[in-house]
C-alpha cells in the first residue's frame, strides 16, 4: 500500500515518499489532490484479486488525517468557528461552501462547452497590421506615490491564525524515539494505551512511526481481531512474538 505509485499534479512517486515529504513540511498539503490519491488506491485494489484489510485500514487512517490537515490549513480561522457552531449551523455552513464549489465546477463545465462551441470563431489578436501607432502620454505624477507603494510592499502580511498549529503533523521521528525508548524499557506495549489523549493527527503520525519501525524490522505488530488493541513487541524477543501470534 505504501509503495502505491502516484501521478499527481504536484507530486509523482510512491505514497510513502509523499507522506514523508508532507511530514517534513517540504510539501504543502494544499498542493495535493487527495481525491486522486483515493482513486489511485481504489484502482490498485480493483487490480488485486483479494482485499487486504490491513492495507485498507492503514490507508483510511492516513488519508483521513491528510484530509483533516488540508481542511484545517484551508480554513485556518473558520475551522475554529465551525467547531463553535451547533451541528445544524455547521452543516448549514458546510453545505453553503460545498454548494458554492459545486456551482463553480458547473460554471467551469459551461465555460469549457462554450469554448468548444466557439472554435470556429476567429478574430485578430493584437493590433491591426496597418493601424496608426499611438503614443501613450502620462500626466505629471507625484513621486510620493512610489514611496507609498514600496512601503506597502514592506508591510508583513497579517499574522496567520495559529489556532491550527496544534494540528500540524508532529515529526515522525518524535514517535520513533518515543517508541524505541519505550521498547528499551518494556518488551511490549499496547498502541492504544500509548496514544490515548493524543489528537487524531498525532495518532496517525504515531501509527506511521509504528509502520516505520516494523519496516526496519525493529518491532513485531499483532492484533487479536479487527479493532482489537494493537500489540507492539521487540523483535529480538522471539518468545514474545510467537506467544502473541499463538494467542491471536
Amino acid at each position, binding site marked *: 500500500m505504501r509503495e502505491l505509485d502516484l501521478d499527481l*499534479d504536484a507530486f509523482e512517486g510512491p505514497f510513502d515518499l509523499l507522506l514523508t515529504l508532507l511530514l517534513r513540511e517540504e510539501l504543502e498539503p494544499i498542493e495535493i489532490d487527495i481525491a486522486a490519491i483515493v482513486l489511485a488506491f481504489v484502482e490498485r485494489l480493483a487490480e488485486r484479486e483479494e482485499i487486504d484489510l490491513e492495507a485498507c485500514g492503514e490507508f483510511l487512517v492516513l488519508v483521513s488525517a491528510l484530509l483533516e490537515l488540508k481542511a484545517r490549513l*484551508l480554513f485556518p480561522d473558520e475551522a475554529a468557528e465551525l467547531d463553535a457552531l451547533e451541528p*445544524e449551523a455547521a452543516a448549514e455552513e458546510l453545505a453553503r461552501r*460545498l454548494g458554492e464549489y459545486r*456551482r463553480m465546477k458547473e*460554471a467551469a463545465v459551461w465555460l469549457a462547452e462554450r469554448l468548444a462551441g466557439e472554435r470556429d470563431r*476567429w478574430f485578430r489578436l493584437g493590433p491591426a497590421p496597418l493601424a496608426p501607432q499611438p503614443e501613450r502620454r502620462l500626466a505629471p505624477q507625484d513621486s510620493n506615490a512610489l514611496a507609498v507603494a514600496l512601503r506597502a510592499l514592506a508591510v508583513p502580511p497579517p499574522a496567520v491564525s495559529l489556532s491550527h498549529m496544534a494540528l500540524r503533523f508532529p515529526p515522525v521521528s518524535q514517535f520513533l524515539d518515543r517508541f524505541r525508548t519505550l521498547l528499551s524499557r518494556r518488551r511490549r506495549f499496547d498502541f492504544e494505551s500509548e496514544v490515548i489523549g493524543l489528537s487524531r493527527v498525532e495518532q496517525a503520525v504515531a501509527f506511521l512511526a509504528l509502520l516505520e519501525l516494523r519496516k526496519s524490522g525493529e518491532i513485531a505488530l499483532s492484533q487479536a481481531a479487527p479493532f482489537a488493541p494493537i500489540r507492539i513487541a521487540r523483535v529480538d524477543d522471539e518468545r514474545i512474538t510467537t506467544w502473541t501470534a499463538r494467542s491471536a
Partner: protein
Amino acid sequence: MDSTLRLIATNPLDQLARTIEALLIVASAPLSVAELAEAAEDDPERVETALGLLRERFGERRSGIVLEQVAGGYAFRASREASEACARLFERPIERGLSHAALETLAVVAYLGPCSRPEVARIRGVAADSAVASLVERGLISEAGRESGPGGAVRYRTTPLFERVFGLESLAALPRLDDLGADGEQIRERLLEVASARAS
C-alpha cells in the same frame, strides 16, 4: 461636384457607416457605441443605426468579414464558413492547453471577481497559483488592485479578452449561478440529517 455633395447630404448615414468600418478595421479590441460616436464625432443614436446597416452588410454567409456584438462593443471577426482556412494559417494561443484547473479558476474570477488567489484556493480546495499565472499570461484575467488592509493579496478580474474569446456580449451573459448546481439542496438536506443524528 454638386451632385456628389447632394448624394452625401441625402444619405449621410452611409458615410458614417464607412467611418465606422474604418474604425473597426484598425481597432485592436471591440469598440462601444460611445467610443465609436466620439471618434466619428456623431450621435450615438445615428451610430446605432449605422451599425444596423453594417450588421446586414457584414453578416454570416454574406461576407467573409462578420460584425459581431461582443465584450461590451462591436468588432469584426472572420465568418464561421472560413474557419478551416483560418485554422490552417493561425493558431489559438489563448485556448491551447487551458487546463481544467484554469477553467475552474476562471469561473471563480468571472463570477466572484475581483478576487484574490487565497479566495480562489478556498473555494476550489487546492492552491490556485499556477492556474492564476497561466490565465494572466493568456490575458484572460488581470490584476485589479489588492485586498484592503496591510499586506493584502493581489486581486484579479476577467478581461474584455475573456469575454471576446468566449463570445460573450458581457459578463451578464454568463448563466446565472442559481441555475447551476441545482442538486445543492440535496447535499444540504443530507448534511442536516447527519447533523441532527449527531446532535441526538
